[in-house]
């Protein structure tokens, strides 16, 4: 086969948080395997578990805290302290499990969290925020 110029490939979504319109819950753009229960917020063309094609998926901005930390050391181009939380997101509407999301939130919000808490994320003034308040789904 003669190699032709590629169309632009797409690894799809990149884990961005999207605020919901008109008071609807926000969501994360990610990828989901068409065959296996594998999902990710990273760019992904092919499932690393089975080789099937990955497709875009919307994951709810809610889930369970897996772990957390507060970064207090000075990090270039960032303001410390800041909070980081790993949240195992709920599965998408079409079924399957959600990915583990890393969310960067104000340090003070992390102080109120415990591993295993149900949480939801939303954005306030352009900054991601986390709370144990349940979102309506």
């Amino acid at each position, binding site marked *: 086969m003669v190699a032709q110029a590629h169309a632009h490939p797409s690894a799809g979504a990149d884990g961005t948080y999207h605020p919901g319109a008109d008071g609807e819950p926000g969501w994360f753009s990610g990828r989901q395997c068409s065959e296996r229960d594998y999902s990710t917020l990273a760019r992904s063309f092919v499932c690393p*578990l089975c080789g099937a094609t990955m497709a875009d998926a919307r994951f709810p901005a809610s889930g369970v805290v*897996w*772990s957390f930390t507060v*970064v207090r*050391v*000075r990090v270039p181009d960032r303001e410390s302290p800041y909070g*980081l939380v*790993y949240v195992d997101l709920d599965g998408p509407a079409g079924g399957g499990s959600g990915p583990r999301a890393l969310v*960067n939130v104000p340090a003070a919000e992390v102080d109120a969290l415990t591993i295993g808490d149900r949480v939801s994320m939303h954005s306030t003034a352009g900054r991601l925020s986390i709370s144990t308040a349940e979102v309506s789904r």
Partner: protein
Amino acid sequence: MTRVRVQGVGTSNFGKQSLDAVDLVWAAIHEALADAECTPADIDAIFVGNVLAMPGTAQRALLAAGFARPPVLTLENACSSGTLAVHLGVQSVLRGESRRVLAVGFEKMSDTIDGPLPPDPSDPESAAGMILPAIYGMTAHRYMHRYGVTAEQLASVSVKNHRHAMANPRAQYRGEFSVDEVLASRPIADPLTLLQCSPVSDGAAAVVLAAADLDGAGPVVLSSEFESGAAWPARDDRVWNYELVERVAGRAFARAGLSRDEVDVVELHDAFTIGELMTLEGMGFFAPGEAGAATQEGVTTRGGRLPVNVSGGLLSRGHPLGATGVAQVAEVTWQLRGLAGERQVDGAEIAVVETMGGNVSGLSGNGCVVMALARDGV
């Protein structure tokens, strides 16, 4: 069947210092070649581990040390870059491609790095602020929640490794610290404090590996295994890195025909205190959640049942990324030859080295090497 012997080892001093990469590499190579009683002309290939240097630095340093013509392979695999250089050197001799090779690791960090390694903006989790102390902090909190591991148990790893380094004249930091002092040191990424994080270091290390039927003496490599990470998290509760270290260590012990209780001394990847605990468990030395209490009880202290990081480890010897794995192999070689001076583990016959490299989002690690070595004649 061909076996591979560590014929000679050498290292620089470790720590922030004025020497540049060329000087550091020379210090390590000079000592290793003298130890192996050979010259650059006796070396068939050179494997070099490094993470941060400009392209060509390795070749420039090797030229200064008298190496020209034989193939130089440069390898980057995060913290396990140096161990990967040793591993590939071992494989090259085992496959019969080379009779004698040099593995070198080096890193000059102090002129460009001040604090944690800067996050890579092209990696999504790094871009969200996930520096390396933060992901280890995540693991530490998960361990505390799941197994009841305490802050004091984490700190006891730092106390032990700093105390071990008192007997290592080349270590970056040597000191007697209490658990309280470790916990009261500057917070980095909760729950980890400064004395629980490996430092910014400059250093180099080198080892000469040869077919065991060549003239020479030194420990024999029983097994050397390298694997890369799987998708993480899986649908289980294993912390970051655990799956990879468990898989590679399992292969290394099986290939060597060793059981865990035959091991006399371990050098492993303690870039952060929680890393040592998690790695000891992943390698099968302790059940999950139990390495912290064992550390507090002195099991992993020199003189205990399973001495771990008697060099001071990454926490205290220092962690010049690319040099680290080669320095670990140098340390266990000295231990197996009875040349470790005040930090000698009496009667050490079997040693294991483990190095984990990694920071990529969504993988259980970039890559991990586990290697088992035996004293000559054992």
